[in-house]
């Protein structure tokens, strides 16, 4: 079966190969990204509250 190749991404100071990384690594990366997004939303809300 030919699945799509995704290559590497840089997250939280680490290079992660999306095609070879373990499921645990991918799940943990998703968790990191989710926290990063939450943090961005908090910062954006804080900036908007200054209006």
């Amino acid at each position, binding site marked *: *079966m*030919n*699945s*799509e190749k*995704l290559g590497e*991404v840089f*997250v939280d100071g680490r290079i992660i190969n*999306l*095609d070879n*990384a373990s*499921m645990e690594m*991918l*799940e943990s*990366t*998703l968790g990191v*990204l*989710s926290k*990063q*997004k939450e943090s*961005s*939303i908090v*910062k*954006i809300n804080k*900036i*908007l509250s*200054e*209006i």
Partner: protein
Amino acid sequence: MGKFNERLLNELTEMSKTEALTLQVQFAIFNKRLNEFYSDKMGVIVKNFDDQASFYGKKTEDCIDSKNSIISKYNSEFQKIYDARKEQFYNVVAEIQEMQGNQKIAMANIMKVNAEIEDLADSSAYKEYVQNKAEFENVVNTTLNKAEFDKYSALLENLKDPFDSHYKTLYALAEKYDGYQAVIAECEKKLIEIGNAAVADFESIVKYRTAGVAIKKSNVFSNIINKIMSIFGGKARFDKEVVKKMESEIADVEKANNEVVDVVSSQTVSLVSRIEAARAEVNAAYNSAVE
């Protein structure tokens, strides 16, 4: 204001990068689950074929063509499902990306309206409004004359705050952003569901692995009989008992799989149309709020 916009723009840029990476990792998880499942199941199919060959006294190299043909057919069936579910996944991802783009536009509009508010605060129109408001309020609060009170109360009531429409737009834009966020959250759940559904589809490919071609348990006596029989009619028995049954199984898989692919395609169309309807609702709510 310059710094406000700059800070907001920086945060939006950071968030865009995070969102793009999130979608990539979500797809990597989808891929990983399916690849692992595929490898496990293909391993079982190959081992089953080899065990059967051994049971019928065949060497793998003697039946390599049959083996390759069966493996290739199973591969095609896994591929069909993978492609259909991948397309479904990508369609939802495209909707998410579009909504995330619209959220950024809403943010950019918030910055624009905010800049207009700041300009307006320095304008003569606003200064006049502030002056009038103070004057009307003063009369309303101090006069003892009923006619004057009524007149200034009406003037105060009809006095239009130049910021009103801007605040209304800001509120509507924030609601629009949140509205998209709710639809995006639903879409992200859908991505997980698509992964689960793809695994279930993969399961259905191997459900046809019936007892008919399950490896027969052998003992010393049956081994001897089998070796004797395989000398005389091993190839014919192997073809009939294993190859033909496996080919018949894969024909059933192909038929069922074609139906699954059709169902997945219609699911994709209906899913995209439901997401677009939800997006249209968010836009309609915004338009109605700023009217």
